[in-house]
């Protein structure tokens, strides 16, 4: 198990033990698992998922950020994050992230894609 810690500039969003987390790295998605080599990467807008037993447990949209991966700890510094279980196509325009990302076209397009057709289901 690896300790996944998701932090926004305002607060710690959650911290928990997970089997595996898949993150949208700047140069491609990667999976954070225990004993990964120490690694720092920036994130592109995309889907972050928490998985156990090859199934998606939870799914989020992140608008960008940084990740620092150590042996047993994965720290994700996100700009904006929203749980995809809270957003569907009908309330997409009202979602918190949508309003915060206003003006940032590329991130918004990705957000819509992730909501409608997430790469990990």
């Amino acid at each position, binding site marked *: 198990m690896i300790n996944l810690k998701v932090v926004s*500039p305002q607060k710690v969003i959650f911290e928990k033990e997970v089997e595996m987390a898949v993150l949208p790295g700047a140069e491609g998605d990667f999976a954070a698992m225990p004993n990964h080599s120490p690694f720092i990467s*920036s994130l592109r807008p995309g889907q972050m998922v928490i998985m156990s037993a090859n199934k998606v447990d939870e799914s989020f949209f992140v608008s960008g950020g940084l990740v620092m991966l150590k042996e047993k700890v994965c720290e994700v510094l996100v700009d904006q994050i929203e749980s995809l279980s809270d957003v569907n196509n009908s309330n997409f325009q009202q979602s918190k992230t949508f309003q915060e990302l206003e003006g940032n076209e590329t991130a918004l397009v990705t957000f819509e894609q992730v909501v409608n057709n997430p790469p990990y289901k």
Partner: protein
Amino acid sequence: MPNLKELKNRISSVKSTRKITSAMKMVAASKLRRAQELAESSRVYADSLSFILSSLAGNTKNSPDLPEILTGRENSKISLLIINSSDRGLCGGFNSNLFRNAKNWISEQQEKGKSVKIITVGKKASSFYKKTDLDVIANFDDLNSNNKQLQVSEEIKNKIMELFENNEIDEVSILFNKFVSVITQEPTYQSLIPLSKEEEDEEVTDKSNAVFEFEPDKNELLEYLVPRNFLTQIYRSVLESSASEHAARMTSMDNATRNAGDMIDGLTLTYNRTRQAFITKELIEIISGAEAV
């Protein structure tokens, strides 16, 4: 001899002042707690970010291609100072301390041959610096009352990035009241450009140097990280300043409440004495009148 009616009015007016100040104290105390919580919860992000930055900057320390925005320009001519004041008054020496401190700093810079530009945060600073002949580039008001701290920090960050790229400024510092304890707040400077020394904590960088891999490469990461770092530093200073403001208001309102109490005691004493004196005087008049008959 003081007029009884007048005394009574004064006592009741001081009493209502005391009510106001003690209410303000309560409000400040509860706001202080919220502000402290906010500052506390934003610390995790800031700490992690500065850790990443220091391991990155440490890693590239000896390479000459570090961006100017991190190391500062060699011949810096123009400094920018961001001053964090409050939006409201009645908080003791909170703002005046800050402005006095800023004045010294500015004249120091001018002695070194640098010119100074200013960005003000909070209504008090903008109205104060309007009257001086200093170059105020921008004002940001009213950020604590409607929780716009992060948004405003972002705007300030964009502003300084833009100014730096256009060569309009060479150095950036923030001035804010650091929250030491409820009774002490300390005007503090923090340098953003060049990156202040404490960020590059030697031991941390040495330890982390060997281990981390970076993706994409370091310079691209720095490009993302530097503005993020500005944002968190500014955000942190704004939050810290708001906690200090509430603490300062709480102490000064506590003092005011106590002073009002003392004043009421004094006035009540005079009032009672005067009233007694009137009664005695009337009695004497009646008695001497009766004796004369």
